[in-house]
Every structure is written in structure tokens, then in C-alpha cells.
């Protein structure tokens, strides 16, 4: 699978976590493009919810996210977070 397709599939799985774990409205998530901000505006997560999202990501992708990586820039948008997940997955291969 090419990297773009991989990113698309990762973002899709991220969207599923947003709906199932964080109860973000399905319409909001489905209408979100990869550049949709996650915190505050856009998806509208707050700092507490980002931790729930990370727990969901760890479970879904089988990776471990260190505290040091939990900076606000990680949640810039779905693309940034998806790219980060892919880099963690690549590092564990």
C-alpha cells in the first residue's frame, strides 16, 4: 500500500475512535478533512479528551505514546496525528 493510502486508512481508524470513544458527532467526523484541527476549534477536543483519544489510539494501533510526545502540536489536525501514528508503527516493525 502506498503512503498516501496508508495515511487515509489511519485517519479513517482515527475517525472511528473519535466516534466510538469520544462520542464526537458522526456528522462532524464524517465531514472532517485531514486538515481539520482536533483541539478547540474543528473537532473540538479539550486537553482531557486528548488523553482519551491517545488511550484509544494505543489500543487500536498497539503502540505506546510517551508523555513527551503529547504536545499540543500533535493534535494540530488529523493528518499530523495520522502521520505520527504511522511513524510509531514503522518504528515498531
Amino acid at each position: 500500500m502506498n503512503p498516501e493510502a496508508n495515511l487515509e486508512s489511519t485517519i479513517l481508524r482515527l475517525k472511528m475512535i473519535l466516534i466510538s470513544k469520544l462520542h464526537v458527532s458522526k456528522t462532524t467526523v464524517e465531514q472532517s478533512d485531514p486538515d481539520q484541527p482536533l483541539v478547540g476549534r474543528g473537532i473540538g477536543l479539550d486537553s482531557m479528551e486528548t488523553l482519551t483519544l491517545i488511550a484509544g489510539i494505543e489500543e487500536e494501533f498497539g503502540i505506546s505514546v510517551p508523555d513527551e510526545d503529547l504536545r499540543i502540536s500533535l493534535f494540530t489536525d488529523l493528518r499530523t496525528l495520522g502521520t505520527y501514528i504511522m511513524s510509531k508503527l514503522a518504528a515498531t516493525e
Partner: protein
Amino acid sequence: MKDKSRIPTNLFEAFSLTAAEGSTRTAVIDGEPISYKQLNRLVQTASLEIRRRGVGRGDRVAILMPNSLEFVVAYFAILGAGAVVVPLNEQYQLNEILFAVDESQVKLIITEAGNLSLCQEVVHLSACKPGVVTTAETGGLNRSADTEAGFSPITMEADAPVMIQFSSGSTGAPKRIARTHANLLFELDSLRKTLSIRKEDRFLGVAPFSHVNGLVRTMLLSMTSGATLVPLRKFERQRAVRALVDERISVFIAVPFMFSVLAQMRLSGRPDFSALRLCISASAPMPENLNRDFAAKFGLYVRQLYGSTETGSISANLEYDPEPSLRAVGKPVQGVEVSVYLDDGSLAAPGEMGEFGVRSPGVVGGYLDLPELNRVTFREGYFLTGDLGRKEEDGTLFLLGRKKFFINKGGYKINPAEIEEVLETYPAVAEVAVIGVPTPLGDEKVKAVVICRTPCQEVELIDHCRGKIADFKIPSVIEFRDELPKTATGKIRKKMLLD
């Protein structure tokens, strides 16, 4: 020579006696370990500095800083000056801090360098014009400071206020609550006995000290029991786990959100949590499934504690085998009586749902300057909590809901009216109703249902809220509707918005 039989009459005396009895014991680990003797010196130095800045008996002093050694020093230094503590939430925005400062007539704000410019802005806009001092200036960072000659605390009476906190009102602005030295001494003694707290215990201080759970049940309980406190400036999952293991933490008191996040995190191997003997969750219900996940990972269940700012700690579920009653908030802690009232004011039968009323020496005398409200908030000496629940034959309490409409976000009680007021000032908004939507973590997320006057986007409304209210109050979900369900008298049916 110390007098072991001496019973403290105020909170500063309780701390001083504890510090004298266990002077060589480690009090706080925030960097280098600090003994009770060293902590006492830091408190005295800071207390004298506060007095030099004009603070005296009964004055109000606000603390705006994260969980830290400096917070502990500031708290007891204020008490040593005979003053009253006003703890401020670090997530508060300018207007929220301004409100608390002016309502409490704060004379001095103690903060750290990072918050200095915000505090200076508060001073500029405030009607009561408090002073501002950083921990560096109060000597709170001077860990080698020696006892100041001539220090003697200003003795406060047991019924004098020790701190002012704010309770989210179901209507109008937050209400001021003054807890007295006697209220807190009772609650701490009750908790010490109920939870079997010993000086060998080591507490993790991760719930914010600005809130009753972190402040009373962690900071004050540890520091008046001769135990060791390990404060963490903010909640970070791996850092919290490292502290639990490395510092051999035995008592961990936090909020469901934190336990739930830890229960779900990915751990490499099974860390050594053998020192951990007590995990207490308060401020919101702990979801059963996540409690089981936590027990599988950490080797013990999270025990639910029920309390409020107005009453202090009410009950705790300390059953030997908590599995059959995970949803219960347990039996009343020592010295606390709970009655359940029906709508007509009569007492409910065992197992029947009603409103919890609480009576104990830990309950406040009432809300400040609100005599009308106080008349209806107390019944036969019982404080009516607004919490709905049932009491079983054996005294076990189950919380079933709220009579008053609040949103519980990660343990913070939010008044929806406060958010509605902010949103209603946006020109495109015609009408708005804010509700709490339950999350799998046991708390609620903030949802705004909006009727627009002119077309507007979700992002505009979130941007409008930013900077006006703390981040945790900003709606996570905004739904646009054409109309809101209402009663015949025009009141919004908020429960219908949850469907």
C-alpha cells in the same frame, strides 16, 4: 518538649504539631526531598514575608499555582499569618479569576513567575486591587532558609474561616463558601480514621490542589498526618505511573477521569504497584468497566468517595470485596450522618430514592451573604446536597443523579448558565441551551444546542468562548437546531435535549 495530648484548635496548629512530631520525616518530594523541619522553616519564612506585605488576621490571600512544594508552603504560610486562603483554578481565564478575587476581596495573590502577567492584569482590572507576590519573593524557593527569629503564628479560633471556595450555583453566579478551621479539622480527622492513614503513607498529589479533592483529601490530609506528599504539576500518564512505582506511593486520591485514562493506557510489562494500598476516586462516578480494567492492571480496585465542597467528605466504599457493590459510594465516614428526604420533606424508607441531606461538624454554616438560600438549603440541621440517591438498610449509599442541573467535567462542576451567558453574547445566537452528555469515562462533555439568528459556524462559537471561560468549560459539541423543546411556561426541557 512536645505535648502529644495537645489537640489542635486550628489548621496551622495541626500542621505545626505534625511537623514537630515528625521533624526528620520526609514531608514533600518535589525535586529534592524536604523534611517536615525544613518545610516548617519554609512556611515560617514565607509567612513573615506575607505579613510584611500587610496581610493580617482575616485577610484573604489567593493562591494561583500548580501542585508543588511552593503551593504547600504558600497555603500554610497564609494560615500562619491568620489569613484565609482563596485557592484559584489554574485553568481559569482572566474574567473568572477577576470574579473570584473581587468577590472574596483578596488582599494578596501568591503565584509563580509564569502567571505573573495574568495576575498583573487582574490587579489592573480589579476593584479590590490586591498585591501580587511570586513564590521566589516569599522565600518559598529558598529551601535552605532557617527559622526566622521571633516567628509566632497568629492564633485563629476554631470557628474562623480558613478558606473560601466557590460552588457552581444552579442559577446565577458561583456561590462563596467559607470552610472553618473546625470544619476541616473534623473532616481530616474523620478521613484519617476511616481510611486508616498513617505517617508511613506516601501520597501522590496529582488532582489539582485548587479543588477540594486534591486540596483536602491529598495535600492537607498528608501534611496533617505526618505522611509524605509527592506533588505532580500536571497529570501525565506515564509520569504518574513512574511516580507510583518509583516513589512507592501507597495512597492515590484522584478523579475518575485520571483512573480511567490509566486503566486504558498501554503498559510495557506489569510495573511494581505493590506499595499501593488505597486508590480513592471522588468528584464523579467511576465507571464499573474501567474500574475492573484498573484492578486488572494495578492489582486493586478504585474506591469511590462521595463528598462536596459544602459538606466535605460524606462516604467511602471500603468494602473488603468491592466487586458486588462497585456502583455504591459506601457508608458515611466517621462522624457523618446522612438522611434521605422525599420531595414532601419526609424521610425516605431504606432503598427509596430521595435527596441526600448531610449533618456533621464538617458541613459549612451556609453560603456567604445568601441568607434566603441558606434557609432552604438546611433542613433539621441537615445540608441538602441536591444529590439524588438511596440508602440501603445497612447504610450503604448509592448516588443516582442530581436534583440541581450541573455538568460534571472530569470532576469539575460546571454551571451550564455560565456557558449559556457567554454564547448568548455572540450576535448570531438567538437562543442556547447547554447540557452535559455522559462519556464512557464517567463524567460528561459539554454540549451546546444553539438556535441561530443568522447563519454561523461551530468554529465561530468556540472561538468566541476561548479566553472568556476556562478551556474545560468550552463546549465539545455544538448542535444547531431550529427550535428548543419547552414547557408551557417557556422553560427549556433540557432532559429532552439528551435524547
